[in-house]
């Protein structure tokens, strides 16, 4: 039972690390980046290519992945999303086009990685960091799980606080509320958007590296499956709320673990979709969503 709880917390932390970047971009500058999963995977893939050549420790691998993710995210923003936003006639149309643009862009890193790995799994076997397991009175937890849980909580809560109290955070939230007014008030939307996408990409890369260590292996398709889970976490927590995505990730993980332990495991997928549907039906703004976010 305690082991199940630890597993659920670890799983929730994985979802959180992945969803943080997506939620940040979506909740503040309104960009639902469908390429997030692809960036996540390709950052890990980049780190894999380098680690294969040079034996590197954990921190270096994570750094490489985070930088790769940040670079890719900015590239997508500058090359795809900004031109779309410039040409869009209203925010609703822009949302659709960004969605499709993200989907299109997502296919490119996926295809490149598939080409090089022939869709075989890849991992950081050549890294100098080896995963240790700790046995604490019957329950087991690995060093990577501890790092993931710690980082997820620190980053999740930290970013939520930062958005609340800092000036930059305030500026970002104001863009989410009313872009035109915020720009009149002197907020440099473009610079803030680029900064946000950089951070979101770095978070994706960080998540990619840590998840690869945790699972031991990733395939090029690994990013796509996590996107739907991220949706569920964000919707349950409330779009636009960083505290929401933190809580949402753990709620999702716990729900999935409960379903797994109580049934034979066939309905675990239905949990994320069912949660999305139920939350949207009965409490559209999720647990912590703000009403003032214009997402309709």
């Amino acid at each position, binding site marked *: 039972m305690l082991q199940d709880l630890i597993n659920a917390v670890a799983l929730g932390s994985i979802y959180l690390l992945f969803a943080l970047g997506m939620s940040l971009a979506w909740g503040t500058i309104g960009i639902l980046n469908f390429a997030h999963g692809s960036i996540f995977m390709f950052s890990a893939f980049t780190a894999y290519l380098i680690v294969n050549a040079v034996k590197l420790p954990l921190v270096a691998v994570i750094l490489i992945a985070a930088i790769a993710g940040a670079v890719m995210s900015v590239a997508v923003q500058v090359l795809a999303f900004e031109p779309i936003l410039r040409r869009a006639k209203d925010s609703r149309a822009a949302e659709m086009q960004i969605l499709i643009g993200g989907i299109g862009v997502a296919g490119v890193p996926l295809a490149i990685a598939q080409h090089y790995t022939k869709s*075989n799994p890849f991992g950081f076997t050549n890294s100098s960091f080896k995963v240790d397991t700790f046995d604490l009175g019957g329950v087991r937890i690995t060093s990577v799980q501890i790092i993931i849980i710690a980082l997820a909580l620190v980053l999740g809560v930290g970013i939520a606080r930062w958005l609340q109290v800092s000036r930059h955070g305030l500026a970002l939230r104001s863009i989410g509320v009313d872009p035109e007014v915020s720009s009149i008030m002197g907020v440099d939307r473009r610079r803030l958007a680029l900064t946000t996408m950089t951070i979101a990409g770095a978070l994706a890369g960080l998540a990619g590296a840590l998840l690869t260590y945790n699972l031991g292996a990733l395939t090029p398709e690994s990013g796509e499956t996590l996107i739907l889970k991220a949706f569920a976490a964000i919707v349950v927590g409330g779009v636009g709320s960083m505290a929401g995505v933190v809580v949402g990730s753990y709620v999702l993980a716990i729900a999935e673990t409960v379903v797994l332990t109580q049934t034979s495991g066939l309905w675990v997928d239905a949990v994320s979709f069912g949660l999305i549907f139920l939350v949207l039906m009965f409490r559209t703004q999720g647990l912590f969503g703000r009403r003032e976010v214009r997402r309709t």
Partner: protein
Amino acid sequence: MSGRLGGLLRGGTALFTAGLLLTAAACGDSAGDTGSSGSSASLPSEIKVVSTNPETGAAAFAGLAANKGYEVAIQEINDQHYLGANTKLVLDKQDTTGKIQTAASQATSAVADKSYTAIFGSVSSQESVAQAPIADKSKMPIIFTQAGSDGVVIGDYTFRVTPPMSSYYPKIADYIKAQHITKLAIIYAAWTPTLKEIGEKTLPGLASQAGFTVVSSIGTQQTTQDFTAPISQALAKQPDGIAILQVGAANPTAMTQLRQAGYKGPVLGNSGASAGNLTPAGANGAGMTWVVDYSSQNKTESSDKFVALYQKKFPSETPLNYAAEAYDAAWLLARGIKEAGSADRTAIMQGMKKTASAGFTGAMGQLKFEGNDLRLPGVVVQWDGTKEILVTG
């Protein structure tokens, strides 16, 4: 578009499009029976066959390996002048890119192209299920490898040169007994037909024969990447044997997390863990044992001959079972053509049926067929951390 002109144009376009489509449909419906290629008493100088396999996408490693097997076989057939001094077998390759619709479309194109005598179908079950009715309905011989689900070998024209996993997996019973496994936990990929069958029917079906009970059975989803929860659940029942029946990256992940959870006992797997899929797990992957239809480690005369031939064309590479299956599939076709004495599709189908019922020796050993479907006893292999080794007894 506003205004009456726009409206007229719209309506006109609609009617015109409808008319064009109706004409196309009329042409199509009168197309009639796509008969077999022109029959001739002697063989033509070129007999063309097309391989529609995933060279990119999730099943790429299997599709690419199969294509290599076809190439090795066809080169041997031509070098030996097996079909006659003046007849060559020619292979075309098309990439299904892992998409069912593409695979189906390529099958249709091949059927319509009278120069093709046969199709080497996709290794992917889902693609094959879409291809099989197309080929069978149009009387085009299609030979599949892998593609282990139902709905593939559905008629006279569909052949499969890979035994379904459920037919040879029971060979694991000996290993189970040797390891003294009495309480087995099963964590299986419930979203793939083959592993669902093995996990829910075939493996539990060996319980009385091999002397174990299934203490835990957990189905996982396609989206399951982290196995700590299913593993905890399985270990809670304190099994002395665990079966991890997964595809692709789930294998090294599950093995790694299984060892991290403190389990040191025997682990059963499936051929989804082969082709080096377990490499990322490093030492944690060692010990996983499963049954394959073919392993190059199983040194028999026919296998060694095939391995030598394969390594002449692809040096320093060990052939995978996908390549061996394809090699034997190509030889089934060649024997069928020789038996038929013509390049006519129906005659070749009958020739292959005769060859199958008589059986023949291929890379994978003595090949016996049940109808159009291969049967093999199976070979038990184990991953030792860096490579596959044979398990005897």
